[in-house]
């Protein structure tokens, strides 16, 4: 365990030095703040549900941004260290490959969690500072949104590692990562909506739709945030589709956890079989 933490600490330090932490925190904070103030326009400054609106817009932003940041940090983790030659030396040390992978995962996740909590936290703080009243339910939904955003980040860090453990060079890893991002963030939903529109509810049952939604971590995240909390779902017009789902919060969280653990497990397996 000690070795895992040593590796994690080194990753965090590197991310701080390389300004990954700074860049991602600033990016998330800037977008969160602008969404907060633009997003509160419809409800006005006295809107009691200001935070709920922010949750809807922020979680839509998260779906695009967090997977991108996560893949950017992670796609390089294994294949990049191998190309640079640092992996060769590291693995000559008394540390197992799964420990290296887990250490990197914890380090990268910590960076992502820090950026998300601080960036989004600033948005909430700004709302409070400008005098919006925030009730308890909205606050709980906001905390859940931050937590699930970190979890979504974990999913894509794990997916990035899997790509990184499988390919031969960094360029390929970057290409595949961008492809996966496009697929999971954009194409999958468009295809799904197109299919539903064509099908007109004849063949695709609710169960099949649920299964298809669970097959994409970004949809799981969307469902969790847009339907999980009564306050929020009132604002989430886009989630009309989601209203028909019967997936509980627990199932959605489990799906996100599995989406993290399964790619991470396969990444560890692929990494342990690789020869340097």
């Amino acid at each position, binding site marked *: 365990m000690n070795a895992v933490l040593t590796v994690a600490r080194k990753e965090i330090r590197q991310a701080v030095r390389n300004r990954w932490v700074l860049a991602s925190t600033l990016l998330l904070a800037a977008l969160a703040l602008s969404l907060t103030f633009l997003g509160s326009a419809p409800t006005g400054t006295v809107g009691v549900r200001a935070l709920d609106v922010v949750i809807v817009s922020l979680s839509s932003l998260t779906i695009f941004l967090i997977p991108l940041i996560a893949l950017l940090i992670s796609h390089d983790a294994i294949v990049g260290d191998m190309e640079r030659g640092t992996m060769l*030396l590291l693995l000559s040390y008394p540390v197992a490959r799964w420990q290296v992978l887990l250490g990197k995962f914890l380090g990268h996740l910590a960076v992502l969690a820090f950026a998300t909590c601080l960036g989004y936290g600033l948005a909430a703080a700004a709302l409070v500072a400008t005098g919006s009243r925030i009730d308890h339910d909205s606050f709980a939904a906001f905390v859940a949104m931050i937590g699930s955003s970190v979890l979504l980040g974990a999913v894509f860090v794990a997916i990035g590692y899997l790509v990184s453990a499988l390919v031969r060079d960094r360029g390929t890893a970057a290409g595949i990562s961008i492809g996966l991002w496009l697929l999971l963030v954009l194409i999958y939903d468009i295809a799904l909506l197109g299919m539903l529109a064509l099908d007109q509810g004849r063949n695709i049952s609710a169960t099949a739709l649920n299964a298809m939604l669970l097959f994409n971590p970004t949809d799981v995240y969307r469902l969790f945030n847009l339907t999980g909390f009564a306050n929020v779902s009132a604002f989430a017009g886009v989630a009309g589709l989601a209203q028909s789902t019967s997936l509980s919060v627990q199932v959605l969280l489990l799906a996100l956890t599995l989406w993290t653990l399964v790619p991470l497990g396969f990444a560890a397996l692929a990494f342990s079989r690789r020869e340097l």
Partner: protein
Amino acid sequence: MNATVRIANVTKRYGHLKALTDVSFDLGEGEMVALIGHNGAGKTTLMKLMLGLIRPTGGSIEVLGDNPAAGEFVGRRQLGYLPENVSFDAALTGCETQTFYARLKREPVAKALELIDAVGLGAAATRRVSTYSKGMRQRLGLAQALIGRPRVLLLDEPTTGLDPELRQTFYEVIQRLAAGGTTVLLSSHALTELEERAGRVIIMNRGIKVADGSIERLRNIARLPTRIRLKVAGLAPDEVPSWLPASAPCRRLNGHIVEIDAAPERKIELLRCATAAGTALEDLDVMAPNLDELYAHFLRQAEGTP
């Protein structure tokens, strides 16, 4: 001799490429062994096998009682490795890098940091590795390999990029370690450097071990002639000194220098002839075959050409 590394009938293939074929040797405590061979002869592959970074296609490897490929890495705490073209995470400083590696080996950090000074990096220790020159990175590589007084040191081309002064220090350090019982295996192209220092030489060619032994022993096996150079006064340009035994192969170099190739058992006889009275001998050099020549000889032999 207690063997710290045992390599038995090891074969390693990458697809169709045979990187190593049936290589066997033991390395003992306190031995300083030079591993020499062309690029691609299998030197780095051997080291990677000893570290468990790759698995052998056949045969068995044991390092400090562990099978390195089985994921047993208790032995690795007592193992130091300096890869060829060592590289570090550029964003960290020398000190941070050394601290990181010391923690992974569970060795005291303060002692590991002393090594930074020992390799002459003291002034640059708080600078980022990205600002280091090739020689400085090599020093840092050396410092990390020495963490925790390793019992086996694997050094892949350790002296490339080091200035002569540091080379000297480097050899002093590893000779001290070897004297304390550390097995040192080092691969190098700088054969003249190794000649006086390595107690044993292993020559590899295309994945096959072609020679293994002390330099003395390799000289005996190779039976390369010792070259004797004589400077003789008053010889005509094509003349060969009349007092030389007719059978001795000799040739004229520039001016009055005659070079004789002496077979090992005739060396003394020839020297007696040369130093006998009335030969007008002005100077004399005796050159035993050096490691370069031995290496070339064993490679030629392995390739099956005369």
